[in-house]
C-alpha cells in the first residue's frame, strides 16, 4: 500500500477528488453541446475543439504568461471551430454528423501540427483555490484543491437551466430545435440561431480544453484527450438535454475516469488500462440502459438528426 495512514480510503477519496478535478472538461463540453443540440444540431467535432482549445490555451499562456488569456484564447478558438461547423452545415444537403467527424480529425490534426513546439516548454498554469485548509490529511487537501473553472462550470449549469426555461434566447434556441418551421414562421433565421448556438458550444468546449492543458493534467501533449470530447457528447444524450443532469453526469464521469489512477496509487495495477476505459464503458452501458428502439428519447429536440 502506498500510504499507511488512510489505507484503502485513498481510493474513494481519490475518486471524489477526481470527480471534482477530471469532471470539469466533461462539464464544459457537455454544457456547450447541450446548447448546440437544443438548437437542433449535433456537433461531434467537439473532440477536436477540446484538443485545439487545450493547445491554444497552453500556447497563449506560454507566450503571454497569463493563463487566463490562454483560457480566453481557447474559448475563441472553440467558437471559431463552431462557426466553421455551423457554416458548413448551413449549406444544403450537408450532414451535420459527418461534418462533426471531419472537424474531429481536422481539429486534432491542426492542434498536433501547431502544438509541436509546445511539448517542451512549461506554460503558466491556472491557480487553484485551497478548500482543504481545515484538514491535516494531505490526500484530503489534494482532493480539495479546486480550480475556479470548475466553480464557473457548476454555476453555469443552473444558469443555463434557467436561461433555457425563461429567457427569450433560451426559447428561441428551443424553438429552432423543436421545429425550424415554427422559428421561421416567427421571422427568425434558423441558420443564424444554430450558428450562434454552435459557436457558444464551441466556446465552452474550448474552455474545457484549456482546463486540460492548464490545470489537470496541466501540460500539453498529443495524448491529452482521448475521447473525452466524444464521451461528453454522448453524455448530453443520456442527460436528456438538461443542463442540471449534465452536471451530475459529468461528476459521475470524472469519478469513473479517476478510478484507474486511484487504484494504481494503492498498488492495484493489473487492470490499469481497463479501469482507464471506465468512462467509455460507463457511457456505453448507460446508453444501452437508457435508449430504446421503440420511442424517441424524452426531452430530445425534434430536429436533431441523431434521434430521428
Amino acid at each position: 500500500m502506498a500510504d499507511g495512514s488512510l489505507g484503502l480510503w485513498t481510493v474513494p477519496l481519490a475518486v471524489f477528488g477526481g470527480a471534482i478535478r477530471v469532471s470539469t472538461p466533461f462539464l464544459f463540453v457537455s454544457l456547450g453541446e447541450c446548447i448546440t443540440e437544443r438548437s437542433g444540431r449535433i456537433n461531434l467535432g467537439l473532440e477536436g475543439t477540446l484538443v485545439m482549445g487545450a493547445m491554444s490555451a497552453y500556447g497563449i499562456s506560454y507566450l503571454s504568461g497569463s493563463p487566463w488569456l490562454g483560457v480566453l484564447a481557447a474559448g475563441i478558438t472553440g467558437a471559431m471551430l463552431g462557426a466553421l461547423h455551423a457554416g458548413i452545415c448551413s449549406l444544403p444537403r450537408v450532414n451535420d454528423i459527418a461534418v462533426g467527424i471531419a472537424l474531429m480529425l481536422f481539429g486534432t490534426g491542426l492542434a498536433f501540427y501547431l502544438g509541436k513546439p509546445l511539448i517542451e516548454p512549461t506554460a503558466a498554469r491556472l491557480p487553484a483555490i485551497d478548500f482543504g485548509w481545515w484538514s491535516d490529511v494531505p490526500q484530503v487537501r489534494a482532493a480539495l484543491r479546486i480550480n475556479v473553472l470548475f466553480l464557473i462550470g457548476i454555476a453555469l449549469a443552473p444558469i443555463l437551466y434557467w436561461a433555457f426555461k425563461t429567457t427569450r434566447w433560451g426559447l428561441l434556441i428551443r424553438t429552432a430545435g423543436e421545429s425550424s418551421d415554427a422559428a421561421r414562421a416567427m421571422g427568425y433565421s434558423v441558420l443564424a440561431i444554430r450558428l450562434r448556438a454552435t459557436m457558444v458550444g464551441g466556446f465552452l468546449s474550448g474552455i474545457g480544453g484549456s482546463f486540460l492543458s492548464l490545470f489537470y493534467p496541466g501540460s500539453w501533449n498529443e495524448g491529452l484527450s482521448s475521447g473525452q470530447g466524444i464521451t461528453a457528447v454522448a453524455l448530453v444524450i443520456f442527460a436528456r438535454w438538461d443542463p442540471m443532469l449534465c452536471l451530475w453526469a459529468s461528476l459521475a464521469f470524472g469519478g469513473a475516469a479517476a478510478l484507474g489512477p486511484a487504484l494504481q496509487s494503492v498498488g492495484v495495477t493489473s487492470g490499469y488500462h481497463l479501469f482507464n476505459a471506465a468512462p467509455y464503458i460507463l457511457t456505453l452501458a448507460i446508453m444501452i440502459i437508457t435508449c430504446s428502439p421503440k420511442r424517441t428519447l424524452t426531452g430530445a429536440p425534434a430536429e436533431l438528426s441523431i434521434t430521428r
Partner: protein
Amino acid sequence: MTTGSADPVEAVGVAPAADPGFLQRYGATIEYILIPGAALVGALATFGLFVALFGKNPLDLYFYMYQGAFGTWFSWQNTLTRAAPLILTALCTALPAQLGMVIIGGEGALLIGALSATSVALAMPWASPLVVQTAMVCAGVIGGGLWITLAGALRQYRGVNETISSLLLVYIGLAVLNHLVEGAMRDPASLNKPSTREIGAANMIGSIPGTDVHWGLAFGLVAAFASYILIYHTVFGFSARVAGGNIRAAKIVGLGVNKLILTICFLAGGAAGIAGMVEVAAVQGRTNANLAAGYGFTGILVAFLARHNPLAIIPVAILLGGISASGGLLQRRLGLPDASVLVLQGIIFVFVLASDALYGRIGFLKGKS
C-alpha cells in the same frame, strides 16, 4: 476558411461534349468524379496557403508530395502498402453507409482483428503456415466483425446511436489491447514496448513477388470487388440499399432489416479486422500499441471521399495512402511536423463534405433528368 466557393467555376471549365444524351447517361457519374475532384483541388490549395503562412513554398510542398507519393517506384510501393489497410477500413464505413448507418469505429475493429489473429497464431505453433494464415484471416474477420456487429445490434435492438457507440468501442478496444499486451499476452522479452510474442517468420504473409508491397493489398482489392458485387449485383445488396433508402418501405415489403443490419455490420467489421490481421502478419509480426496508427480514422475519410462506393474506394485509398506516404519526405525536406498529413486529411474531409451541396447544381450538367 471559405468552403469551396471556387469549385463550381472550376468545374465548368472542363465541360465535355454538350450532347444531352451523353449528359443524361453520364451526368451523374461525371458529377461524382468532378465534384470530389474539385473539392480535393480546393483542399490542396488551402493546405498550400496554410504552409505558406509558415514560410514554406507551396510549390515545393506539392512537388515533394508528388515525389513522396508517386514520384518513384519506391514511393509507389510505400503508397500501395499504406493503401491496403485503408481500403479495408474504408469498407468498414462504406458498407454500413449503404444502410444509412454512420460507423466510424474501424480503428477498433482493426485492433480487435489484429488481437484475435495474433492470439490464434500463437495458439497453434504446431500448424503449417498456410493453416495458421487461414486461421488468422478467419479470426481477424470474426473478431473485427463481432466488434462492429455489437454497434449495429445496439442500434437495432436498443436504439443506441451507432456513430457514438462505434467510436466508444475504439477506445474500449484500445484499452483491451493494451490490457492484454501488457498483461496476459505480454512477451517477457519486450521491455520498452510491451508486445505479444511474435507469430514467427514462417507465418508472415510476405510480399507480392517483384515488389515490397505485401499481400494485404490483394486482400484489400478482393474485399473491395467482392463488396461491389455484393452491394450492386446481388439481391442481398439490393435489399440493403432499399433498407438504406427507406426503412419503412423495406419493412413493408418484408425485408428482414435486423438481419441485414447485423450481416452488413459483421462484413464491415470483418474488413477492418482483416486490415488488423494484415498489419500483424505482414508488417509488425506481433500485436502492440503500434497498430493504432490511425488507419481506421483515415478510412472514414476514404469512404466519404469515395461516396461509399466500394470500387471508388480503391483509387481514393491509393491517393490517401500516397498523402500519408509523402509525410516522411515533407518532414525531412520541408521540416513540416508529422501532423501535417493529419491537417491535410482534415481539410480534405471538410471540403468534400461542403462540396455535397454542389450536387445537381452545376449548370451544364442540368441536362440530366
